[in-house]
């Protein structure tokens, strides 16, 4: 009792003595046995010598989650918006000159339209039309020859320049040409699939962001924030939320309003503010209690004044 600033009162002593007189040691012993047995039956409390580390772990978890989200966002952004997407698709065709000398006179002529076909910006509709022939060619030669290393071919790839050329209709490729392109054509289908997935992700993420943004300013959200602020006695937040138009008497799942929360937390200032904005004293929660009812057992004169239950002296 280090900070007892109230002097001992005979009433306190009388009450303590009364409890002593009424005390039943046998009942206490029986209660002790029952409680300790029940506690022993319960799962043991987790061994944790440093309980304060728990919130720290939570914080790290939060940071990790945030970092993961940021990483995914960067990945999505780079995959969707990067202009350097086309070269890896264009690069493999030069494999032909390496592995098949007979197509060497044609590489520029063949790869130019191919690159144009594969660029969704140059030919927005083309990909679906060209996918089939290219995929068939890939299937035809998939087992015929191993795919050459694309990075090794990139520096020697001459047809980079024609990428921006207008897309001509897909030419009918001769069998050797198709064979020459086959190793290069194999990877694109998964790339296209992931592209659509990424686009879906972007759309979904955008929708979610819009929903969250909308909810943040919705009356229900404002009301929830108002109740939280009132429960915690954050008067400035209460004021700001009321000024934003938060519905003052909106109840939560238990039917409790911000005023009830403020009363239960015994926050006279927040309560006074809510009353000034017209919070109802008579609205009842699901248990049938109003803010007025809740204030009575608290016996706080400041709270009663804030509610207007007693006249200011």
């Amino acid at each position, binding site marked *: 009792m280090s900070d007892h600033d109230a002097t001992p009162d005979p009433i306190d002593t009388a009450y303590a*003595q009364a*409890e002593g007189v009424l005390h039943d040691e046998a009942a206490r012993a029986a209660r002790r046995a029952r409680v300790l047995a029940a506690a022993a039956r319960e799962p043991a*409390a987790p061994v944790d010598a440093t309980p304060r580390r728990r919130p720290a772990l939570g914080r790290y978890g939060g940071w990790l989650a945030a970092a993961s989200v940021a990483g995914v966002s960067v990945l999505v952004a780079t995959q969707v918006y990067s202009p350097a997407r086309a070269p890896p698709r264009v690069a493999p065709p030069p494999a032909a000159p390496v592995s098949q000398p007979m197509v060497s006179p044609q590489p520029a002529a063949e790869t130019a339209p191919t690159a144009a076909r594969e660029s969704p910006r140059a030919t927005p509709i083309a990909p679906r039309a060209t996918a089939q022939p290219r995929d068939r060619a890939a299937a035809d030669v998939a087992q015929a020859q191993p795919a050459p290393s694309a990075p090794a071919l990139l520096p020697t790839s001459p047809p980079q320049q024609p990428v921006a050329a207008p897309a001509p209709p897909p030419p009918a490729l001769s069998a050797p040409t198709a064979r020459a392109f086959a190793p290069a054509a194999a990877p694109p289908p998964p790339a296209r699939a992931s592209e659509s997935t990424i686009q879906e992700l972007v759309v979904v993420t955008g929708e979610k962001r819009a929903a969250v943004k909308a909810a943040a300013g919705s009356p229900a959200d404002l009301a929830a924030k108002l109740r939280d602020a009132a429960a915690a006695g954050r008067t400035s937040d209460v004021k700001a939320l009321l000024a934003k138009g938060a519905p003052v008497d909106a109840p939560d799942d238990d039917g409790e309003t911000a005023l009830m929360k403020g009363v239960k937390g015994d926050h006279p200032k927040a309560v006074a503010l809510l009353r000034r904005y017209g919070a109802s004293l008579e609205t009842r929660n699901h248990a049938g209690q109003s803010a007025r009812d809740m204030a009575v057992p608290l016996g706080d004169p400041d709270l009663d004044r804030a509610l207007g239950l007693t006249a200011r002296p």
Partner: protein
Amino acid sequence: MEPDAAEDADLLRAHGAGDPHAFGRLYDRYDRACFQFIRRLLGAAQADAAEDLHQETWIAVSRNAAGFDPAKASFAGWLFTIARRKVWDHFRRQKVAVLASAVHDEAAMSVADPDLSPLDAVQSRELAQEIVAAVEALPLEQRGAFVLFAHAGLSLAEIAEASGVTVETAKSRLRYARAKLRQALAGERPAHV
């Protein structure tokens, strides 16, 4: 609170670490105060629930031992917070209106000099029951503050912590509780003893 706070935290930690005796020692320190607190908050009408709520309180203590942070609260404050919530939850489940009396009346504060109280020595069971009945007639929050101070021996700061209010509010509740008790028991005479 008379028991040492650091020892309370050590006992709780030892319980969390598997010491089979630590919980019993901790229980013995507070069981009377905790039970009477619950019993008085419940009042005579709900007295049957006291045993169950007392047990639930201690089970909650055992189960959440790892979550207790002695840097944030004393064990006593934590324990009586749990006990108080158990009682409120019980009232909510039972749909009991926790309205023990009307709004406090200023007249109660004008009742007399505590030195004139006739309750110097409470020895008879009858008088003890009358005092306890007067305590149970107090408004709930005033009752809680009074029992925690007068019987459990909590400081005003600990009462404030356990009740979720400021120290000033706890002090105010205690003051009103004493005044009302004085008024209610003013007719008692030592002759009853």
